[in-house]
């Protein structure tokens, strides 16, 4: 009996640990204590921009291309190729670019944080910080969280741009059944700034959950170099599930009851 209940008990206790940890990190950031290390936060922002922005945008670009060709072929089959813009606008802004952002962030940033902080933990650098009188929670986790808050809104806007450009290339330049003007007319008609805001909220909730999960698994890593690898793999599993759940909740919340389309009524 206990063998069946053990995983459940374990899951509940890990969840509790993560929530407690997240509370502490967010307290550091929003309580303002992290600003004593603002320079470190800026350095971490630079690391995020230089190291991650390009791969995030390239994934958004590739998925924008896929959205574009699926949309073009689908709308050709309905006999309305001029309306490829509807498919591209909804697919890109509402679903695929937030998901691609979440996927690449959990792959690149989430696992990167676990590997980095986990290595510090098992080589006792975290304890060394404490000995020197620096709060490791603030210096390692708080600064990285603040860096994520500073950088990701802009990186996400950039990835929307990459996805839009890719869809345009796929529909207008590659398949070529609709003119550039016709595509953009429909494309911009089926979205408005509120949709953009919803999309940003959805993607940023994914981003912050991913960063927190990465920080948690890195900060609590143990068991030597092998332990860091295992913690990295575990954080990826949790992140993927959370990305999909947040994506679903976001869609349900923002567009579930109201399609927000400029037609019908």
């Amino acid at each position, binding site marked *: 009996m206990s063998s069946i209940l053990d995983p459940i008990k374990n899951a509940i206790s890990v969840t509790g640990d993560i929530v407690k940890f997240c509370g502490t990190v967010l307290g550091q950031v929003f309580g303002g204590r992290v600003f004593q290390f603002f320079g470190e936060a800026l350095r971490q922002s630079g690391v995020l921009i230089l190291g991650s922005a390009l791969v995030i945008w390239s994934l958004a670009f590739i998925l924008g291309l896929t959205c574009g060709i*699926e949309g073009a072929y689908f709308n050709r089959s309905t006999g309305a190729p001029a309306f490829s813009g509807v498919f591209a606008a909804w697919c890109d802004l509402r679903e695929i670019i937030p998901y691609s952002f979440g996927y*690449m962030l959990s792959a690149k940033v989430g696992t990167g944080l676990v590997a980095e902080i986990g290595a510090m933990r098992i080589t006792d650098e975290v304890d060394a910080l404490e000995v020197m009188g620096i709060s490791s929670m603030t210096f390692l986790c708080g600064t990285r969280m603040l860096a994520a808050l500073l950088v990701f809104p802009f990186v996400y806007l950039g990835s929307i741009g990459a996805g839009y450009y890719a869809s345009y290339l796929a529909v207008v330049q590659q398949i070529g059944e609709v003119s550039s003007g016709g595509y953009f007319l429909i494309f911009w008609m089926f979205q408005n700034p509120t949709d953009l805001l919803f999309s940003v909220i959805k993607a940023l909730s994914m981003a912050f959950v991913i960063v927190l999960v990465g920080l948690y698994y890195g900060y609590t890593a143990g068991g030597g170099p092998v332990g860091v690898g295992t913690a990295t793999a575990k954080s990826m599993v949790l992140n993927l599930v959370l990305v*999909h759940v947040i994506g679903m909740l976001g*869609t349900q919340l923002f567009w579930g009851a109201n*399609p927000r389309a400029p037609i019908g009524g």
Partner: protein
Amino acid sequence: MVRAAADRTFLPVKNFLEEVGDMMILTGKTISSALRPPYPYGGEFVQQFLFTFRLCWFPLLISTVAFGYAAPGLQAGNFLVLFGALDRLGGFFVLASIREFSPFVCAIVLAGVAGTAITADLGARKIRDELDALQVLGVDPVKNLVVPRFLALMIATGLFNIYALLFGIFGGMVASLTFNAPLGPFFATLLNNASIPDLWGSVIKTTLFGAIIAIVCCYKGMTASGGAEGVGRAVNSAVVIAFLGIFAFNYAFTQVLLATHPEISILK
């Protein structure tokens, strides 16, 4: 000065190309040593296969139901309700679920869950010098470690695609029910539009995704280095490369399938 600038620009490119070349060599070695006798990898193959199943079934279930319910289910359902044509949602699911999102959610989860576990496992063996020890004992690591993982992941990804597809369609059913629509028309249009090329295209695509994941993750695990941070870094870069590889391949495959089989994109 010029030399330094050129190094700075081209060194990453050169490293990247070298890495891709190494992965291609590993692919060739894996395939040739999988086919050439003897075949000592049976037990390891079964073990890896079951390991993948045990690890992936739950994350994949949640992911596909969530994706299927929200992205194609709610968004497309909302759009179709405007035209009073919600029964067409089933037909849309052929495009959305069978052709696109089931394969790629399946590949993402397999890469994120099984692929990272493989890299962490092989990386740990590499930095504890176990792989070198194997070679000293005259055991070929490619034949005994990479081949079973390669085959297991290919077959598991292909099979999991069917599983992802069923749960994706289940998500669509739930979405259809939230619009208070009967399920009969959903399945009628789904089965009308589903075609054999869609299904085999989807299965072949995911099998090849599995091959990409296995090669990238095994390569990164077997070349892990640099002590404590090494294994974590290896997992990190393995999953990034696997994601980019999967989606680039997905785009090329979808384009080829749609262009060569025009009959599958006709709505019935």
